[in-house]
C-alpha cells in the first residue's frame, strides 16, 4: 500500500452527519487493530517479535465498542490478548510495537512484551498473563474510586476460560457485595485455549451465572460493534449511576489460533469459516457501503492511512534503542526519591 500519499480523513457523507462520522470512526478503530495484528504476524515470522503472542483478530468489535462507553478518566484492566484493548484505549501503535520488539521506547520499556502492555497515563492497567489475575485488581481500582468518591468506571476484560477461575467468582461476589463501580466484560470466544466452552463450564450461559451474584448481566452479540457499544453504554451508565458492578457476556470468536504456538487442531475448520462470515470489521464496512457512508475511495484512503501509521510504528521500533543491560536492575524497586520525597 502506498505511503507517499498525504493521509486524508475519509469523509463522504460524514461531514454533514455526525452519526455517520461516528460509524466511520468505529470502522477505523477496528481496522487499526486488524491491520496492526496482521503486521504482527509477519514480524513474528521474521523473529522481530518473540515470546507468546495472542491475536485478537475476529474480536475487534468488543474492544472498540466497549471503549466508546468509557472516558479518559475510566480505567481498563486487560489480559495477555490485549493489543486490541490497548489500541482502542489510545495507546499509540508505536509504543506497542516497540514493546513487542523489546525496545527501550516500548510502553513497558521492553520488560513486558506482547502480554504485558501498560500505560498508566491512559489508565491502561495491562497486560495480565495469569488467567483471571486482573479481576481482583480491577475490583481494587473500583474500590479506590468508591472510597474517594470519584465517579469513574473500571472496565475489566477477561475470557470465558477465566470465568472458571475462583478469581472471577470471588471478585464478582466482592464487587456486588460492596456495590463497586466495575464493568465486567467477558469475551466469550467459545474456547479457553483448546478447550471448548461446554467442556469447561457446567452452565454455559455465563450471563445467567453472573446474575446470580446480583449483578445486572446481559449477553451481547460481540460481532456487532453497534450492539456492543449500545450495551456497554447502558452498562457504564448503570455503573456511573451507582448501580454497582455490571456484567456483559460478549459472544465473539477468535479467527486465529490461541497463540502463535498453537496449531489449532481442536477446532472444526467449518466452524471457523462460519464465524468468519460474521467478520465484525468487514461486516461493518459492508453496512456502511450499503448505506453509502463509505465509498471505495474512502476505504482505500483509510487503508493507506493505517498502513502508513503501522509502517511508521514498525520503522520507529526498528530504530529504537535497546534497553541497556546495565539497566537490568531498574524498576525492581522504586527509586529512593520516589519513596522519600
Amino acid at each position, binding site marked *: 500500500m502506498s505511503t507517499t500519499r498525504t493521509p486524508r480523513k475519509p469523509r463522504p457523507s460524514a461531514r454533514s452527519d455526525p452519526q455517520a462520522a461516528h460509524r466511520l470512526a468505529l470502522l477505523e478503530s477496528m481496522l487499526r487493530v486488524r491491520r496492526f495484528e496482521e503486521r504482527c504476524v509477519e514480524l513474528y515470522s521474521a523473529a522481530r517479535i518473540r515470546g507468546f503472542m495472542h491475536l485478537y483478530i475476529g474480536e475487534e468489535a468488543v474492544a472498540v465498542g466497549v471503549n466508546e462507553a468509557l472516558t479518559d478518566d475510566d480505567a481498563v484492566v486487560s489480559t495477555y490478548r490485549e493489543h486490541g484493548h490497548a489500541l482502542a484505549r489510545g495507546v499509540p501503535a508505536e509504543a506497542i510495537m516497540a514493546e513487542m520488539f523489546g525496545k527501550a521506547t516500548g510502553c513497558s520499556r*521492553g520488560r513486558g512484551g506482547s*502480554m504485558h502492555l501498560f500505560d498508566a497515563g491512559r489508565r491502561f492497567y495491562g497486560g495480565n498473563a495469569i*488467567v483471571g489475575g486482573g479481576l481482583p485488581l480491577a475490583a481494587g481500582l473500583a474500590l479506590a474510586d468508591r472510597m474517594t468518591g470519584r465517579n469513574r468506571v473500571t472496565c475489566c476484560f477477561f475470557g470465558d476460560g477465566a470465568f*472458571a477461575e475462583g478469581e472471577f467468582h470471588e471478585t464478582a461476589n466482592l464487587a456486588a457485595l460492596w456495590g463497586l463501580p466495575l464493568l465486567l466484560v467477558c469475551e466469550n470466544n467459545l474456547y479457553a*485455549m483448546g*478447550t471448548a466452552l461446554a467442556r469447561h463450564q457446567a452452565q454455559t450461559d455465563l450471563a445467567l451465572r453472573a446474575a446470580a451474584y446480583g449483578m445486572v448481566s446481559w449477553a451481547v452479540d460481540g460481532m456487532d460493534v453497534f450492539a456492543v457499544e449500545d450495551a456497554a453504554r447502558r452498562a457504564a451508565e448503570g455503573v456511573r449511576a451507582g448501580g454497582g458492578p455490571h456484567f456483559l457476556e460478549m459472544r465473539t470468536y477468535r479467527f486465529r489460533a490461541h497463540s502463535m504456538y498453537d496449531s489449532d487442531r481442536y477446532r472444526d475448520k467449518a466452524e471457523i469459516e462460519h464465524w468468519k462470515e460474521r467478520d465484525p470489521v468487514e461486516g461493518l464496512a459492508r453496512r456502511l457501503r450499503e448505506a453509502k457512508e463509505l465509498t471505495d475511495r474512502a476505504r482505500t484512503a483509510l487503508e493507506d492511512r493505517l498502513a502508513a501509521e503501522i509502517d511508521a510504528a514498525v520503522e520507529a521500533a526498528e530504530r529504537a534503542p535497546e534497553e541497556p543491560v546495565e539497566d537490568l*536492575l531498574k524498576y525492581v524497586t522504586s527509586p529512593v526519591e520516589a519513596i522519600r520525597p
Partner: protein
Amino acid sequence: MTVTHTPTAGPATPSVEKTTYREAMREALREALRTDDRVFLMGEDVGRYGGCFGVSLGLLEEFGPERIRDAPLSESAFVGAGIGAAMAGMRPIVEIMTVNFSLLALDQILNNAATLLHMSGGQLPVPIVIRMTTGAGRQLAAQHSHSLEGWYAHIPGLRVLAPATITDARHMLTPALADPDPVLIFEHGSLYNVSGELSAHSGPVDIDRAAIRRPGTDVSVITYGGSLPKALAAAEDLANIGISAEVVDLRTLRPLDDATIGDSVARTHRAVVVDEGWRSGSLAAEISARLTEQHFYDLDAPIERVCSVEVPMPYARRLEEAALPQPAGIVTAARRAVGEPVPTGADEGADAGRSS
C-alpha cells in the same frame, strides 16, 4: 519420606533409541496409564489440545476422556480434586501448565497435600504426582518464566524432582507414582526439544540419589534441571583451559542427597552452585549452607553461586539473557573458586545478583 527406591538393573547390552525429552515424558505417562488403572492424567488442555507443551499428545485417543481429563481453568479446584482422589485410592497425575500458575493452587499443595498425612497422625497419605514446567529462556516475560521449584523444596511432606536428562524424564515417573506421598516434578521448558539416545532397557531412576553427570577433580559444579546443559557446556570450556570440573545433577531437590553432593566436594574441595532461582533464599543458598555446615574443613575456597539476577524476568532478549545463569558465568565462578585469574570484564552480567 523414608521410602527407598531400588532401581532395577537392566540387561547387559541395552539397545538404544533416539527420542526427545518431550517424548520420553509422554512414554512415561503412557506406561503409567497402561500399567495401573488407578492412574489418570488431569489438567488444563491435557486432552484435546495435547498438553500446552505437547507432552500428552495422542493420549486422549489412547486412554479416553475419563483418564485424560481436561480440567477448567481452576488450578486450586483441580489440584485439590487430585489430592482428594489420591486419598481415595487413585493415583492422579496432575499437570499444571507452569509453576507460575501453580501459585493459584499453592494452598492445596501446601496446606493439604503436604500436610494431611502429618495432621491426621499418619492416617491420610496423599499419593499424588503433580507435574509442571518451570524456567525461563524463551522471552515469555515475568509471569511465564520464573523458577520457583526452590520454594516447593522448602516444604516438608513433598518430594521435589527435576529431571534434567531424557533418561530421567522417561524413568522418574514410576518411582514418583510408587511414592506414597506427594511428588512434584519440574520440567524445564527449554528441555522438551532436547533430543538424544535413550537406552531401551534403562530401569526406574533412583529418586533418592543425585547423579554425577561428568566426573572431575578440581571443582564441583552442582546444579539441576534446565541448568544442567549449561553446566556441562561450562565444564567443557573449563576443560579447555585445564580445569577439571565435576558436574553434579541434584535430580531430587527435596530431600537433597547430602551424601553425593558432599562426597563430590570432599574430593574437589571447591563448589559452584548453579540455580535458575533468585539468589536470596534460594536452593543454592540451602546447598551452600549445608556444605558449610558439613564440609567446612574440606573446602579450599568460598562456595560460589550462579543464580538468576534478582529481577522479575524481562521480555527483551538481551535483558533476559543477562538475568539468567549462563555458561560464561559458571566458567568465571569456577575459575574464581580454583584461584585462576578471571579475565577482566568476565564478571559482568554473569554475576550481577551478587550485589543485590
